[in-house]
């Protein structure tokens, strides 16, 4: 076991799986000698050579398009999109192609590949280095969407994603890259896709969250505990396909639910959680299902800390649903 930051765990996960499986190759903008702008791919070119970890031209369409071709033809590409905000030039390749290839070919062609990309706020990146686009992708059947929140999960989920037979969008909470540290097992291990993680059990209010919002929720839960409110915190971690049964169980457990994410509220991922609850377990609800999210605006720069859900806002919502 090593004590690693989240970005080190990603790096370790990549190196581990590349040692294990020669068909895994890593590429993207600046992932080679520079090691990626967040150093997630540091030293991979050194260890595995230019054929297995390399820089590409500045075209996300090209990165994902070629990754799909490689995946069809026996490789296991792990493509990096430098910031999730820059994934949109590849939206067509992801949504129309990777996600639909198995379906439209009756399984004759498949795209087992991973797209890694840092997402979310917290680095003063403004409109275009801060977004959380998970909802765009979670509305896309055929894709899997994974967001880790701990170093352990980051490595285990990443390896599971790379070994998965379907295309996986692996979104890394950049705010947590260096701000969280944790024990990470050596060598190859996986964390099952499509299982959620109960971060802490509680009986009064259930908070659903993922990625960088998990520590925020935990801080709010600690404050709530001071008032005697027991918060059940669930890290969804695989957003698509979602463990819907697990979500409904956790919602029923307390009958009071808060959903937290950084992305804008309207048609955000949280709306699906609310909808699942409203559709399946509404009779267990003892309070409105509250969402604490980014505002329905682009992501600002100077005021990003007002934009992103923080302990204050989550606690406020917990108190509201608790006292309803």
């Amino acid at each position: 076991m090593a004590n690693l930051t989240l970005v080190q765990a990603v790096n370790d996960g990549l190196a581990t799986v590349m040692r294990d499986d020669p068909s895994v190759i890593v590429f993207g903008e600046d992932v080679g000698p520079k090691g990626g702008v967040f150093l997630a791919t540091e030293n991979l070119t050194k260890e595995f050579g230019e054929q297995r970890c390399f820089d590409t031209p500045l075209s996300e369409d090209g990165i994902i398009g070629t990754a799909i071709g490689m995946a069809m033809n026996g490789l296991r590409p792990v493509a990096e999109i430098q910031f999730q905000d820059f994934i949109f030039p590849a939206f067509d390749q992801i949504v129309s192609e990777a996600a639909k290839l198995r379906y439209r070919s009756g399984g004759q062609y498949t795209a087992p590949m991973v797209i890694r990309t840092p997402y979310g706020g917290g680095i003063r990146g403004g409109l275009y280095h801060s977004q959380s686009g998970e909802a765009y992708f979670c509305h896309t059947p055929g894709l899997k969407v994974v967001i880790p929140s701990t170093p352990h999960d980051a490595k285990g989920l990443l390896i599971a994603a790379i070994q998965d037979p379907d295309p996986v969008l692996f979104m890394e909470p950049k705010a947590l890259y260096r701000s969280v540290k944790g024990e990470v097992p050596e060598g190859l291990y996986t964390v099952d896709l499509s299982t959620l993680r109960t971060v802490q059990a509680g009986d009064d209010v259930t908070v659903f969250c993922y990625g960088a919002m998990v520590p925020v929720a935990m801080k709010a839960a600690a404050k709530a505990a001071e008032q005697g409110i027991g918060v059940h915190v669930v890290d969804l971690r695989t957003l698509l396909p979602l463990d819907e049964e697990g979500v409904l169980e956790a919602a029923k457990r307390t009958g009071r639910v808060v959903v937290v994410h950084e992305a804008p509220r309207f048609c955000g991922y949280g709306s699906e959680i609310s909808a699942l609850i409203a559709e399946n377990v509404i009779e267990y609800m003892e309070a409105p299902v509250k969402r604490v999210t980014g505002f329905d605006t682009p992501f600002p720069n100077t005021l990003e800390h007002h934009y992103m859900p923080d302990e204050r806002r989550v606690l406020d919502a917990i108190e509201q649903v608790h006292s309803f």
Partner: protein
Amino acid sequence: MEATEAMTVIGADGGSNGYDPGLSKEELLYCYRTMLLVRAFDDTCMKLQRSGRIGFSIPNLGVEGMQVGAATALRKDDWIFPCYRNFGMALYHGVKPVEMMHNMYGNAQDSARGRQMPVHFSFVDPIHWVSISSPIGTHIPQAVGAARAFQVRGEDRVALTTFGDGGTSSLGFHSGLNFAGVWKAPVVFLCQNNGYAISCSSEKQTASESYAIKGKAYGVPGVKVDGNDLLAVRRAVCEAVDKARAGDGPTLIEAETFRMGGHSTSDDPTRYVPKELVEKWAAKDPVDRFERYLGKRGIWKQGDRERIYGECMQEVADAAKVAQSTDAPGLETIFSDVYAELPEHLRRQGRAAFDLAARRGDAAAGGGAFPL
């Protein structure tokens, strides 16, 4: 080779120049037959569409020569990333008309389980014919990725991708050629310049001197070839394929030809294609041209076309009959193949669909028609 005048092998009179590959009689007749098989397939589909049995088809009149010529340059272990107006290449490589007809009908035997529109074929055997998708150009970088996989494994296989003149404006063209140039990937880019992208003529598509010259932007050599000359296309593609196999990188080939019909079975080209243009190109018909060549070689005689076309029509008619009597895909095919394993939520949705059908009867088929 550079992007200037279109390269030819067969002259207007059927004679050939120094680049005649000297193919065997059997091979030549197979090429000829394949072009006629494309026509038979087209003609049949047109009738099927007119009579409402299938929804849509893509005619190939005028562009059969480039398809078959290009196909001859590939081995069975190469991969094709095709666009829709190129399925003569699949027929050449041994895909059976009946397999294609299953797709045209979208029935249970269709390799895509009736999920795709007609003409969106997908095969892995006898050659890798990568599932066609409708968005134009997306398959171009995919071909480059597949080629890179060959390269990584040290295989001497190539990926050939085809697209239309309109396809050169797509994002995939730009990223695909650029990546291939940098990677020296074993890929062949074959542009079927047939003059139009639906109703958009080439002058409105691009101001570049030619499509072949677009390779300059990527360090990819560009070649222009007479697309109605089967042997010229063969030559260009063979050279490009050999180069790619040898590790010398990609080539962009522009096959100059003309779409003699509408964009699809639903399109009316008289709205936008000048009659004179159609007449000009009718005189260059690739089948006529090849026939003259066969005649000069003494392996074609009057009546052969009718006989062979008749055989092809019979084969296609038989295929259509089989496809038509094959069941529609089962309801479960809506839910399968989304993921390798059926996830829980799709299992539930599938069950609900079966349950609803049991309780309330089947959904009524809709009446909409494809506009184009």
